């Protein structure tokens, strides 16, 4: 039995390992996100809300303007399951249509914020100089304005139209994105791999699009997913204050506003739109938090 110990220790454990599949940042993040039950539930609710917004015309039993002969404040019945509002309109249908503006404001505002904030932040962070200075001073002033005040002032100047609600919120929100991208670029510019690319003769355009921007996508995506509920909230508060999209288009905020006067006689009219906003906000926050933890594993262990 002259088996040398060396022979035994080399008994193939390394070879038996399955071929390690290369996993990128994104598939890794997706795996972590799928394990987060709150985020998965939030995503499911968001998909349902989007479907509700798109197909409101098919789902809603009535139009959001039709007034019923029973008059205002009908009690819930089989025909009108949530009753009627202060003008005798079907509350359920108005709730379903209300999803439209909330989903639209979230998406449209963030599209504008990305289209404006990312390029400006990228240029300021990459080039520096007077442009950077100008951007920073401008965002300083916007930051000094309490956001809601700024949006309301903008909206007053623009006029009361649905599109202007989106535009006003976007104008108040893009500086945050620009500052985020700028800060990312400033720190990435110092990294060795960027230095190496520059030494290898990469053009500024190539540096930005192939090195700086791809490495900033994680924080940008997190900012977008957390920016969506912020925009939805701002729209809801505007509508609640009676400053949102003009009637008769229903928004959950305006539904709460309209039901406020009858809060003691028909409290349910306040409860349903309030629940709708809260559930929507919760879902987006769960997904946003989940994404942040998934894309930045260090923050997950810390928080």
């Amino acid at each position, binding site marked *: 039995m002259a088996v040398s110990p060396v022979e035994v220790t080399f008994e193939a454990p390394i070879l038996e390992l399955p071929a390690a599949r290369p996993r990128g940042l994104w598939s890794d993040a997706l795996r972590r996100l799928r394990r987060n039950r709150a985020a998965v539930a939030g995503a499911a609710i968001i998909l349902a809300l989007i479907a509700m917004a798109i197909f409101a015309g098919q789902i809603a039993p009535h139009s959001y303007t039709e007034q019923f002969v029973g008059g205002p404040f009908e009690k819930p019945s089989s025909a009108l399951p949530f009753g009627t509002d202060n003008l005798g309109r079907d509350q359920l249908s108005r709730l379903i249509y209300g999803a439209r503006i909330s989903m639209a404001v979230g998406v449209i505002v963030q599209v504008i914020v990305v289209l404006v904030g990312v390029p400006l932040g990228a240029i300021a962070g990459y080039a520096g100089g007077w442009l950077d200075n100008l951007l920073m001073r401008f965002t300083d002033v916007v930051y000094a304005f309490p956001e809601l005040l700024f949006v309301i002032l903008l909206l*007053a100047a623009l006029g009361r139209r649905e599109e202007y609600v989106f535009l006003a919120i976007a104008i108040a929100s893009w500086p945050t994105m620009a500052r985020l991208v700028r800060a990312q670029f400033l720190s990435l510019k110092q990294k060795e791999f960027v230095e190496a690319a520059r030494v290898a003769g990469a053009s500024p355009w190539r540096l930005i699009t192939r090195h700086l921007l791809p490495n900033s996508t994680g924080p940008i995506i997190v900012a977008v997913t957390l920016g969506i509920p912020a925009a939805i909230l701002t729209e809801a508060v505007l509508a609640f204050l009676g400053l949102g999209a003009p009637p008769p288009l229903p928004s959950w905020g305006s539904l709460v506003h309209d039901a406020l006067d009858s809060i003691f006689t028909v409290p349910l009219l306040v409860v349903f739109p309030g629940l709708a906003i809260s559930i929507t906000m*919760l879902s987006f926050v769960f997904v946003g938090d989940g994404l942040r933890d998934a894309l930045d594993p260090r923050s997950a262990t810390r928080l």
Partner: protein
Amino acid sequence: MGAFLVRRALALIPVLFFVALMTFVLMHLTPGGPWDREKPLSPQAIENLNAKYHLDLPPAQQFLLYLWNALHGDFGPSYTHPDRTVAEIIASGAGITLQLGFFALIFALVLGLPLGVLAALRHNTPADYLSMFVAVFGYSVPNFVLATFSIVIFAAVLHLLPTGGWESWRAWILPAMALGFGPAAAIARYTRSSMLEVIRQDYVRTARAKGVRELLVVRRHELKNALLPVVTILGPAVAYLVTGSFVVEQIFHIPGIGRNFVDSILSRDYPLLMASVLLYAAAVAVANLLVDLSYGLLDPRIRY
């Protein structure tokens, strides 16, 4: 420290100047004027009113005139309340709004801090999950929904508390809670993550190893150091309280200054609008300044 304070205080001046400028520009871009009525006034009457309130001057001159007067403590007359000056209107409601904000902040601290500490000390237990759920809840549910729901529950169903006014302490409870819940959630989240960081530090282990009593470790070694980062979010919290206050004041019919802002936009009451915006912006800026200062006082490692 003194030089830092002076520098930061001086930096408020250009910020407030540009806030005033932006408000002025937006205000004058807004269609319609302060004299629009259902029954239009005669051109002569409008001309007289414009002359009386200096609205016939070129815009640049109007702005400079406003700044000059404001610097001398004169914030002008209110168009909608001809018998009162803007300063009087704001002075009459500011105390109540400050009270509301103060109570809301106290509520936020009293709820948020223990929740965050508990979550960190019982990390990954049901107590942790529950307090973090409360935190996400407070962070997601808009304050006007909290306010209306609290009216439904405590006033419409249980008949426990009044739903409006500001006369007795019982009327203060619901508004302060509705306004303070959001900041409470933010404070709880920050306290938790900051505590989790601190309880892994070497000096905490050292304190335990040398036999310091558990309560003392938590209080003196963990909490004291964990609270530092929490102070920084008090700045944004004040900004939140500011914008939240005019929503909450409207719902609970509180005679504070919140109504002024929305009303003055709708009625184009330019002087009242300017003064409201400047007041809110100044409140937020001063809160941030105080936060930076207290951060330096609390943490001796920070030097200015």
